[in-house]
C-alpha cells in the first residue's frame, strides 16, 4: 500500500493557478525528487502537503487514510489539521531553527510540547538523532554558533524527532555555500538507507539522479513527467523536460 497518495490537488493564488491537477503516489521508503524551474509549483506542492497552504481541491491520503479533502476544507478544525500535519515533516530552505534554543532544545521542544514521552525519553531520542546527523559535539551550541550546513542538519534532526511518515525537503541546500551542500546531502542519503520516505525539492541534479527512486519534473503547475531517474534523465519523453535538463546542464 502506498504511504502517500495525492489526488487531483489544485491550488491557486488569487487567479493564478499554481497547482493544476497533481496526482501521484509514493511507496514506503521511496525517495521522490521534484525538479523544475522556479515558479513551476514545486514548493507550493510541498507546502500544501504540510498544510502551510491549503489546496482548494483534491485529496491527500497517508497509509490509506484520507487526511485532507479540499471539499470539506472549511469544516476542518485547526486541531485536526495540526494532528494530520504531523504525518509530514518539513525541512526549510532557510533552516528556521529557533535561535534562542540550543541544538538539543531545538529538537526536544516540539516532542515535549506534544507530550511524546517522558523528558528522559525525549532527550535520549534527540541525542541519538544528533549523533545520526553527526553533531554530537555541538549538542549544547546555539544556532548562531553553527555553520549553515550544520544548522540544516539540526533542522533535519528536529523534523525526524516527530517521526513523520513522509519527510519533505524544500531546496535544503539552496541557502548554503557550495562547499557545505555535501554534508547535508550526505545526511539525506544516509536517511534513505534508514528506510525514510522522502520528498526532496532540489536543484541538485546529480543528487536527484543518484538518490531518488522517482523523479518528478514539474512545469507550469502540472507534473510534466514522472519516472525513475533513468527514464527522466536518460530518456525524457517531454520536450519541456528535455529543455529544462539541457539548460540546467549548461550551467556546469
Amino acid at each position, binding site marked *: 500500500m502506498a504511504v502517500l497518495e495525492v489526488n487531483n490537488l489544485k491550488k491557486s493564488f488569487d487567479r493564478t493557478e499554481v497547482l493544476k491537477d497533481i496526482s501521484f503516489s509514493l511507496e514506503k521508503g521511496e525517495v521522490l525528487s521534484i525538479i523544475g524551474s522556479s515558479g513551476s509549483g514545486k514548493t507550493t506542492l510541498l507546502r500544501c502537503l*504540510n*498544510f*502551510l497552504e491549503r489546496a482548494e481541491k483534491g485529496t491527500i491520503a497517508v497509509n490509506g487514510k484520507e487526511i485532507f479533502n479540499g471539499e470539506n476544507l472549511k469544516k476542518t478544525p485547526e486541531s485536526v489539521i*495540526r*494532528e494530520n*500535519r*504531523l504525518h*509530514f*515533516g*518539513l525541512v*526549510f530552505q*532557510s533552516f*528556521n*531553527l*529557533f*535561535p*534562542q534554543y540550543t541544538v538539543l532544545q531545538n529538537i526536544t*521542544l*516540539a516532542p515535549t*510540547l*506534544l507530550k511524546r514521552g517522558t523528558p528522559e525519553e525525549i532527550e535520549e531520542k534527540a541525542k541519538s538523532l544528533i549523533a545520526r546527523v553527526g553533531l554530537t559535539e555541538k549538542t549544547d551550541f*546555539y*544556532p*548562531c554558533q553553527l555553520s549553515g550546513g550544520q544548522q540544516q542538519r539540526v533542522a533535519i534532526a*528536529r*523534523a525526524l524527532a*516527530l517521526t513523520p511518515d513522509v519527510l519533505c525537503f524544500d531546496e535544503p541546500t539552496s541557502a548554503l555555500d557550495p562547499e557545505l551542500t555535501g554534508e547535508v546531502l550526505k545526511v539525506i542519503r544516509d536517511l534513505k538507507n534508514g528506510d525514510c520516505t522522502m520528498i526532496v525539492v532540489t536543484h541538485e541534479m546529480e543528487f536527484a539522479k543518484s538518490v531518488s527512486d522517482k523523479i518528478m519534473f514539474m512545469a507550469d503547475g502540472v507534473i510534466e513527467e514522472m519516472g525513475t531517474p533513468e527514464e527522466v534523465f536518460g530518456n525524457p519523453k517531454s520536450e519541456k523536460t528535455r529543455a529544462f535538463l539541457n539548460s540546467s546542464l549548461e550551467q556546469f
Partner: protein
Amino acid sequence: MDQFLRVTGNLLEGFGMTLQIFAITLAFALPLGLIISFGSMSKFPPLRWLVKTFVWIIRGTPLMLQLIVIYYGPGLAAKWAQSLGSSFFLIDWIASWTLMERFTAVAVSFVINYACYFSEIYRGGIESISKGQYEAGQVLGMTKTQIFFKVVLLQVVKRIIPPMSNEIITLVKDTSLARTIAVYEVIWQAQAFIKRDGLLWPLFYTAVFYLVFSGILTLLFNYIEKKMSYFRS
C-alpha cells in the same frame, strides 16, 4: 546642613511618589500594551480600526491634557448628566466624588498613555519576526499559543529592549507631570520650597534623583541586553 537634610528628606518622600507612579505604570502598561498590540494587528478590520484610532488619539495628544481630562472629566460629565435630569445610581455616584482620587487619575492616564506607546513597540517587534519561525513551529505541530510563547516571544523581547528602555527612561521623567493635578511627586516637593522658604536650589537638586534612578535603569538594561546576547535572531 540641617536644611540640606530637611530638603533631602522631603525630596526623598516626593521621589517615593515618583517611583510609585513609575512602578504602577510599568506593571499595568506592559501587559496592557501587549493586548493593545494584538488588537492593532487583528484580522478583524473593525477592531483593528478602533484600536488604531484609539492609539492615534492617545499618542497624538499631550499626556498632560489626558491627565486633566481623566481627573476632571468623569465628574463634570456626571454633573452635566444630572443637570439634564438623569438620575442613575452610577451617575450620582460619580458626581458625588467631586474629584477623583488624584493618584488614581495619574495611574489611569499614565497606564493608558504608556500602554499605547508600548503597543507600537510590541507590534514592531512581533512583525519583525520572520514568517519562517511561525511556519517551523506549525510544521512541528505546535499551537498558535505555543508558537507565540515558546518561539516568538523571547525573540521579540530581545529586539524591543532598546526601544523599550528608551521609553521607560522617558517615563521616569514624565512622572513629573503628575504635579499638574497636585500629586506630591519630587518636583512638586521642590517647588514647595520655593513658595515656602524662597529656596530655588532644591529644584535643581531633584535632577540628582532622576539621574541616579535613570542611571540604575540604564545599567539594568545593559545587563539584560548582555544576558540575551547568547543568541542572534
